[in-house]
């Protein structure tokens, strides 16, 4: 079975009308988007939004109920083996083999993906240098920290020279410094290699430097655009001020009643734009103690689109079993 040749200038990833139902829950509802070559694309949404389901469909673990998913022009459902060859995937939970060393894990990946021996050795050396794990080549993976394991997994995903990298919540459970390091590695990878990256995450601050962001909630695509465009379209500038006196506060509140938002108290919050800032300063400039301007952020974009914050959830049974296994379970690993 020869690899079907992709069409010229085809998008790296194309999702077209994909739906997936679990029992009575509709996990994905007619989701469509394209990811271009060399793009850094983010799927933003809370837990349970359908991000992981979509990712599993893209890497051919699940089949969509309807719609089609194309990786490099190859239909994932029809030619899963060929599609997988083009993908590098980093799952949310680490899927490294704890008992093998760093190099053995990479070697195994190479064997499994059919990379010939000399090429394998070469690439392992390169990737270890790239993610700064060369010193740990012969150490068992068990002895690595979570951040290092994540870096190793990203390196592993590229051993077979994949062109499309799928990262499922890559920085969950890591501290801020490690998160930043991971992202800097990803940026470096993009600079040095010809890869497309699709990231799913629920950390809003991390998607600021992506090329495009797709906001997804409840299985539906709510918005898809560059971060700036989204902020402009849906973002709100907020003006937070504390008045010099209560009387001044009431005066401001009466004057800009239509712009008032949030709960009234010592601080007033006004939905604002540049014109309003100038107006407030001009009319009440001397009667304001402090004033701060919140520029549109994706937080507010999300809020305005979905009407709520990113949800939190209790540990599900899988996480409980994982914790059980972590504690030593019964012949777990």
């Amino acid at each position: 079975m020869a690899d079907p040749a992709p069409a010229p200038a085809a998008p790296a990833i194309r999702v077209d009308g994909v739906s997936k139902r679990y029992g009575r829950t509709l996990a994905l509802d007619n989701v469509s988007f394209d990811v271009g070559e060399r793009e850094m694309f983010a799927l933003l949404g809370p837990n349970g939004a359908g991000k992981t389901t979509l990712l599993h469909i893209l890497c051919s673990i699940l089949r969509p109920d309807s719609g089609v998913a194309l990786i490099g022009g190859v239909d994932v459902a029809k030619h899963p083996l060929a599609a997988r060859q083009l993908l590098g995937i980093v799952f949310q939970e680490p899927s490294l083999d704890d008992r093998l060393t760093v190099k053995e894990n990479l070697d195994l990946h190479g064997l499994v993906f059919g990379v010939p021996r000399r090429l394998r050795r070469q690439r392992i050396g390169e990737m270890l240098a790239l993610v700064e794990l060369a010193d740990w080549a012969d150490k068992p993976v068990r002895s690595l920290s979570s951040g290092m394991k994540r870096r190793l997994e990203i390196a592993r995903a590229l051993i077979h020279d994949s062109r499309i990298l799928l990262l499922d919540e890559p920085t969950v459970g890591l501290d801020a410094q490690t998160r930043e390091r991971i992202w800097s590695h990803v940026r470096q990878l993009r600079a040095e290699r010809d890869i497309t990256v699709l990231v799913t995450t629920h950390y809003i601050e991390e998607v600021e430097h992506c090329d495009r962001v797709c906001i997804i909630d409840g299985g539906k695509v709510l918005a898809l655009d560059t971060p700036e465009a989204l902020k402009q379209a849906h973002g709100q500038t907020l003006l937070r001020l504390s008045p010099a006196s209560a009387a001044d506060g009431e005066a401001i509140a009466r004057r800009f009643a239509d712009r008032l938002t949030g709960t009234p108290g010592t601080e007033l919050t006004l939905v604002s734009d540049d014109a309003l800032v100038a107006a407030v300063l001009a009319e009440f400039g001397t009667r304001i103690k402090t004033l701060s301007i919140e520029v549109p952020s994706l937080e507010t974009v999300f809020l305005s689109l979905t009407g709520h914050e990113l949800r939190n959830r209790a540990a599900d049974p899988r996480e409980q079993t994982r914790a059980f296994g972590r504690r030593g379970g019964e012949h777990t690993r």
Partner: protein
Amino acid sequence: MTRAAMRDVLSFVAVVALLVAVSVLPPDTSLSEVEKSASLKACVPPVYPPLVTGDAALPGLDIELLGAVAQRLGLALVVNENPAIGRDFNPRNWRLSRGQCHVIAGGVVDSVQTRSFLDVSPPYAETGWAVVSPAPIADLAGKTVGVLTLVSGLDRIGLASVLRARGAVARVVPTPDMLAAGIADGTFAAGVTEAMLARKLADEHGWTVAWAPDLAHYRLVFGLWKGDVTLKHAIARAFAGLSADGTLAAILDRYGGVPVAPR
């Protein structure tokens, strides 16, 4: 080989070494018991030529062999004669017990029946059923045949069915003398008994001897109690030494024993 692989191999080798060390532990106390008393006790029939003759000058194949083995092990040989062995076919009636002897000799063959009760030493001679007659007999049909079954472990049932199939009439006799007498005076056209005894009779009276047809050969061994593994290994080593320096062959030769055919 990477360091990790080296560690793997080493841990496996360590495990194997541990098991090898365990495997050389003595599983029982039989050899140490024997060495403590500095003597090897053997139960034998009083007379069963050529294995046990009762003659001091030429004591018998088994006695000489036992002596050689005991000497190799640095032990004295103590021979317990048990008259029941010569008289009765069923070993249970010999009432041999572990207290009386460590080794049973004088006609023990390596067969499934023997191994059901005893363990065995390495074999030293071959035997089986043999037909002894004044002149070679081509056909046993209609002939009266004397049968002497003293060595337990040979297949009596097999012998009976072969004789019946060939149309011979079998008469059981209790002692070698009666068998010889029967052949000499013509009551029996031939006698069937264990091969070494048959050869002895044939040599004495100038008769011919041949292997009985259609029946398996057995190997002569010493009987050892089951579970006396250390003693068995020591005796096996002694046997190996005796065959290596030709002592075994010499003893066999003296008594006309047939060496074990290679399997």
